[in-house]
């Protein structure tokens, strides 16, 4: 008995669904059967859940696009400029949504299906409704066929994948926690845990995808979807909390921790046991340990001898470990409820942790504007010059650009994949198809080619090549019930593809430069501009309620700041490091990690700023805090103008900031001595120490960034390149 690999099984499923979808479409006498083929090709993913999820998005997107297209046609069919204008606004809006995080594929279908129906209608207005309905029914049929094939033939459930992804994620986070605990005790280095941190980010993404799919194909997961979602959010929060904890080690390590924090080891051991218990539950064993509430205590006698900044570091460490305690307990509860150990899943799942972010994202806005520009150029070219391919030029050019913007890939790369697909399809169209007669032979060819494409191009990094090949193959062979062969049609398709590629490339290269290193630099500038703004609003005497715009900007920048490092990391991965040999990928990654730390520090400082501070301390220390803030602001402004640092500048900066902090420390000492006992409450002291801890944390994060920045060759990235 032959044992088929998973890869072969998936390829067979797609090929079989393709043959059936074409067979039904041709049997029903529908035009454009390749639309059904597209639906099969696009939703074919490795599990039923993933395919179902994508299929639902495609179907809903197609329905919305059909309704939008018919509305645009009904209202603006008599005026081509209004027609193109409204369509461009609609596509721009969809593209803004596509480049976001949620329901990307739904918005993508809303955009490109509407464009296809509208451009079809523009050349044949009387059949607009038929075209829209045909598109919907072909898409629906393709999705249905693939779903049935995937359900009945070698079905693969995602529940197992979700459990596996969860187990891996928890194991990795537990290992990170243990390595940080060891690091706190002076064993190992932060560098050693870097591979684990990278793995953690990947596993979080995998977990999110697995959860999305498992919700679609597993009833048990659907029932507990809120609990699963909450677990995912808490895992994300754990990642952030662990990072913040590690970043504060430099301040706490020099202290006698066993004296200052007498139950530190007990708290750490409790957390360790919780992670072990979660791992047990995920392996199918009942938990050997039940979490007990534990708080880190501070020995006030031992802290008496510390400096104010050291006291602040101790307070910060306690708040971080308290946070870890809360998160690990909620992770334990989530897994216990999901796995059904102990008490039933009755506790209320808290609301989403992340509130919506106000304001427009400039990167997404840029994508929307480029799409609108493509419509603004493609339509007049079509109206006045009628290039080869006619409506196909407009469709291909705009879709091409939108695809590039969605996956952040140069259109030239996509064009190469499409051209290879077009040549491959052309060979079959010219030499093979005229020899075929009847659906049996055509079906055999469709099966063989689809199988070959999906079998050979199965790796995720080959997705663009796979899509290029299958799309152009289906378009070029142009299967119809009354099949005709025309080389001129093939040549025209090729010419329109090339012209559409030129249009997409031209729009892609409109300023600002789309080169990854330039995008990286621009985003970095934005990061420092936002940081500078936020720091300037942290002045102790700044009125928080001043002006709606300022308040809005503060909220927007605060939430945006933490989103920029992941974006920077994504652009860093696209930089061609062979062209910039002085800046290694490891260096760039370390730089982004330092920015992440900086963003967390600014966020923490902003949160501390919101705590009520004693008026007396504010009045006394206003000038010293301002002096420190001005140094930080000045440096952030310098980085916003130019992120480069001269060699040795970080040492000079360190000296300047530390001198200022030492002065602040002396002033705090003096103020506390002058104020005397009894005039400040313990809460006043705690809040002030936390604020001081944030000052030091931010200063050290800035110095760490400066050390990395001075080692990079920024001039190389700043140089203009083709």
């Amino acid at each position, binding site marked *: 008995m032959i044992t088929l690999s998973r890869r072969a099984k998936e390829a067979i499923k797609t090929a079989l669904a393709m043959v059936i979808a074409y067979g039904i479409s041709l049997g029903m006498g529908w035009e454009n059967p390749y639309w059904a083929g597209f639906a099969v090709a696009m939703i074919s993913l490795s599990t039923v859940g993933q395919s179902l999820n994508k299929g639902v998005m495609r179907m809903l997107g197609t329905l919305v696009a059909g309704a939008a297209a018919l509305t645009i046609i009904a209202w603006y069919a008599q005026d081509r400029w209004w027609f193109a204008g409204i369509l461009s606004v609609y596509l721009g809006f969809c593209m803004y949504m596509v480049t976001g995080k949620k329901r990307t594929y739904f918005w993508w279908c809303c955009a490109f299906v509407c464009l296809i129906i509208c451009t079809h209608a523009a050349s044949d207005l009387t059949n607009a409704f038929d075209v829209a309905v045909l598109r919907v029914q072909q898409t629906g049929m393709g999705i249905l066929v693939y779903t049935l094939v995937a359900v009945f033939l070698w079905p693969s459930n995602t529940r197992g994948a979700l459990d596996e992804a969860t187990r891996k994620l928890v194991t990795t986070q537990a290992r990170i926690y243990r390595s940080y605990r060891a690091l706190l005790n002076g064993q190992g280095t932060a560098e050693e845990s870097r591979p684990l941190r990278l793995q953690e980010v990947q596993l979080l993404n995998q977990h999110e995808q697995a959860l999305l799919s498992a919700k679609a194909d597993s009833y048990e997961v659907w029932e507990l979807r809120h609990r699963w979602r909450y677990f995912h959010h808490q895992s994300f929060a754990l990642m952030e909390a662990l990072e913040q904890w590690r970043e504060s080690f430099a301040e706490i390590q020099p202290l006698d921790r066993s004296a200052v924090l007498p139950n530190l080891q007990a708290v750490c051991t409790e957390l360790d046991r919780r992670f072990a218990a979660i791992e047990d539950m995920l392996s199918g064993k009942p938990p050997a340990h039940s979490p007990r509430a534990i708080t880190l205590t501070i020995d006030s006698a031992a802290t008496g001898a510390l400096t104010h900044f050291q006291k602040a570091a101790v307070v910060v460490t306690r708040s971080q470990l308290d946070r870890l305690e809360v998160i690990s307990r909620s992770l334990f509860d989530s897994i216990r409820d999901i796995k059904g150990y102990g008490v039933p899943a009755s506790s209320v799942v808290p609301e989403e942790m992340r509130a919506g972010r106000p304001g427009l994202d400039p990167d997404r806005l840029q994508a929307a504007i480029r799409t609108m520009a493509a419509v603004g150029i493609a339509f007049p070219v079509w109206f006045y010059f009628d290039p080869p391919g006619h409506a196909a030029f407009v469709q291909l050019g705009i879709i091409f650009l939108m695809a590039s913007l969605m996956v952040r890939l140069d259109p030239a790369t996509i064009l190469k994949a499409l051209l290879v697909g077009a040549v491959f399809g052309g060979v079959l169209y010219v030499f093979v198809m005229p020899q075929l007669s009847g659906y049996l032979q055509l079906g055999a060819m469709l099966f063989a080619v689809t199988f070959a494409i999906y079998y050979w191009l199965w790796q995720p990094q080959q997705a663009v090549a796979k899509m290029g090949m299958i799309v152009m193959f289906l378009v070029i062979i142009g299967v119809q019930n009354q099949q005709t062969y025309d*080389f*001129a049609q093939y*040549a025209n398709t090729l*010419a329109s593809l090339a012209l559409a590629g030129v249009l997409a490339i031209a729009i892609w*290269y409109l*300023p600002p430069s789309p080169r990854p290193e330039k995008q990286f630099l621009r985003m970095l500038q934005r990061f420092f501009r936002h940081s500078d703004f936020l720091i300037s609003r942290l002045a102790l005497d700044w009125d928080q309620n001043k002006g709606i715009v300022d308040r809005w900007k503060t909220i927007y920048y605060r939430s945006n700041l933490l989103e920029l490092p992941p974006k920077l990391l994504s652009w860093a991965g696209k930089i061609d490091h062979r062209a910039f040999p002085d800046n290694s990928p490891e260096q760039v990654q370390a730089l982004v990690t330092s920015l992440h730390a900086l963003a967390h520090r600014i966020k923490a400082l902003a949160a501390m700023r919101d705590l009520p501070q004693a008026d007396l301390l504010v009045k006394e220390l206003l000038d010293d805090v301002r002096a420190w803030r001005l140094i930080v602001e000045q440096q952030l402004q310098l980085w916003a103008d130019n992120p480069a640092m001269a060699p040795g500048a970080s040492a000079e900066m360190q000296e300047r900031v530390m001198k200022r902090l030492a002065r602040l420390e002396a002033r705090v000492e003096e103020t506390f001595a002058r104020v005397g006992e009894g005039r400040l409450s313990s809460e006043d002291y705690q809040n002030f120490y936390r604020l001081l801890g944030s000052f030091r944390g931010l200063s050290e994060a800035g110095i760490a960034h400066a050390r990395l920045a001075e080692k990079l060759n920024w001039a190389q990235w700043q*140089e*203009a*390149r*083709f």
Partner: protein
Amino acid sequence: MDYIPSEISVGGVYFPPLLLASTLGVVAALLTVLLLNRYRLSRFMLYPPMIFVAIAAIYTGLIGTFLIPV
């Protein structure tokens, strides 16, 4: 006037000579910008994508004038 523009026949489909000239022009421009990048000469240019279009247009003009009459 020795150069008389003539269409190029591929499988019975006639393509304009400008298509071939511009394709060659783009290929030549690609090679040129590769060299400009290699020797870091692109750093003297204000906006390289626009320069690329200009170089491609110049090459197309030269090829259309001297090699393939358009």
